[in-house]
């Protein structure tokens, strides 16, 4: 499918337009946040704690007297940063290992499959939680690393399965007959055909990574205290459900909208890139 057909197919869907709009807002907030609300992270005034939404603080203030709109913008940057790094590292690592196992086969494949099974025996969120549990001190880098530890597994499994199929396809046989090396075939012939499913998985992966970071920070075990994060905002909001419900509502809406936007895009991309599903999308 040409790039233009793909874009026009995507742009026709309402969910894609809504998702793109939400993501544009989130990226805009993340980029503009540090300029528009530079005080959010640093200058919080205790005397204006738990103010209801007003003209000067249009989403209100939190228990430390910080402007919630500012925190939200800073949190957007953190969510996107965690999501992008986790997905990039996981997708690259998983794709390379999956490609190696699928193309090589034999003991390399069997070994990787066993390692995959072992990693899959630990639920990803629990792995991240356990790593953070024994870490000397929390940091954003550690949260990212903890999420990458099991993040690559899904990509490796996907790519291995696809590579196993493509390895036997006619054009790969043709490339082999032309005398190309296995490495050349893997990188130049097979890999380009794996990009679509990996992109679809990565789009859902962004949603997953953002949710996982927020979940860990919600439990108070993610980013260090004082780091503006949507999950950490929800963590604080829990103590004020009765007196200041907006502390919980606002970051929750931000997380849900962002995750939904990535899910909308992932769904549309999968329908557009997978011919077997074509026509069943809304």
């Amino acid at each position, binding site marked *: 499918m040409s790039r233009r057909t793909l874009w026009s197919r995507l742009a026709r869907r309402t969910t894609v337009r809504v998702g793109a709009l939400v993501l544009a807002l989130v990226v805009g907030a993340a980029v503009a946040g540090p300029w528009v609300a530079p005080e959010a992270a640093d200058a919080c005034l205790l005397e204006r704690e738990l103010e209801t939404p007003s003209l000067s603080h249009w989403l209100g203030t939190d228990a430390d007297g910080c402007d919630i709109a500012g925190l939200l913008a800073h949190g957007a940057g953190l969510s996107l940063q965690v999501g992008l790094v986790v997905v990039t590292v996981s997708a690259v690592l998983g794709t390379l290992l999956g490609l190696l196992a699928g193309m090589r086969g034999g003991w390399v494949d069997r070994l990787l499959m066993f390692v995959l099974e072992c990693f899959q025996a630990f639920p990803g969120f629990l792995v991240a*939680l356990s790593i953070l549990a024994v870490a000397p001190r929390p940091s954003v880098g550690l949260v990212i690393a903890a999420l990458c530890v099991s993040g690559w597994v899904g990509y490796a499994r996907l790519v291995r399965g696809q590579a196993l199929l493509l390895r036997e396809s006619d054009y790969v046989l043709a490339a082999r007959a032309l005398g190309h090396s296995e490495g050349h075939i893997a990188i130049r012939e097979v890999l380009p055909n794996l990009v679509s499913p990996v992109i679809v998985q990565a789009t859902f992966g962004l949603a997953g990574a953002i949710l996982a970071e927020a979940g860990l920070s919600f439990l108070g075990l993610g980013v260090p205290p004082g780091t503006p994060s949507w999950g950490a905002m929800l963590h604080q909001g829990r103590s004020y459900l009765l007196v200041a419900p907006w502390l919980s509502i606002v970051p929750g809406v931000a997380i849900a909208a962002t995750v939904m936007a990535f899910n909308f895009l992932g769904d549309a991309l999968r329908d557009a890139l997978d011919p077997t599903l074509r026509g069943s999308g809304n």
Partner: protein
Amino acid sequence: MSRWLLARIALLPLLLLAVSAGTFLLSELVPGDPVDFMIGENATSERKSELRAAYHLDDPLGERFVRFYAELLSGELRSLHTRRPVIEILAERLPNTGRLALAALLVSALVAIPLGTLAARKRGTWIDDSSMLVALVGISVPSFWLGPMLIIVFAIGLGWFPVSGADAPGSIVLPALTLGLGMASILTRITRASVLETLGQDYIRAARARGLSERTVVVRHALRTAAIPIVTVLGLQLGALLTGTVITEEIFAWPGVGREIVQAVRSRDLPMVQGSVLLLATIWAVVNTLTDVAYAILDPRVALR
């Protein structure tokens, strides 16, 4: 087929060994002294060496690994704080987690199967579109937000259910909804796809040609076949549920394994973390294996792949 099944089942003990080794190595992979981790960096050096001796931390890795297993299997792995055997604490907590997981599973099946079937029957209409939209939105709403929102509305606002705990009647409702509704979204999509596929089959057309009512066709014939993937997903979800309980139990102060993990992590109780993670990972591995086996029995093509 039987060879594949045997291999799959034989893998389980190996997996469990790897899982427990992974849990043990948790404490090894981390930079720094586990004693600092337990009592803080500022403790006196006598107290530190006392603890090092008590926990055999200066012994070689292999020896400690064997001891970890011995303690684990004999039930002597103890919580750092309460000094109670980990296995005893977990045995108290697990039934609560199981009860919550089953209630959530029930919620998700009650929502998803009718909604997914309806969407499939009304394919292409606004009913189909809106149920799929609801499902997509449902996947995106995190449990750690849904939970507090349900508390605001149904516990604080309407006063229908207790805010937290497990003692009062009806206390399971909000946690089960929190956990079950997210899962219902995934299940609705699977149900829709599965019913759609079944409705296109010849035997369904034959049932219609025999003059059976649409209701009988869908409920008695289509749904029965469509149930195979639905049941598989339900099985897989049971594993996912067990980890989902970590956050939900924490929100509602539900006395289960998940809450125990979070508290152990907060109080830096390493044996308790290791024991609970090992328990959940074991359940997860067993459920995954059983689901694979069940699926292979239902659909022999799986084993041939």
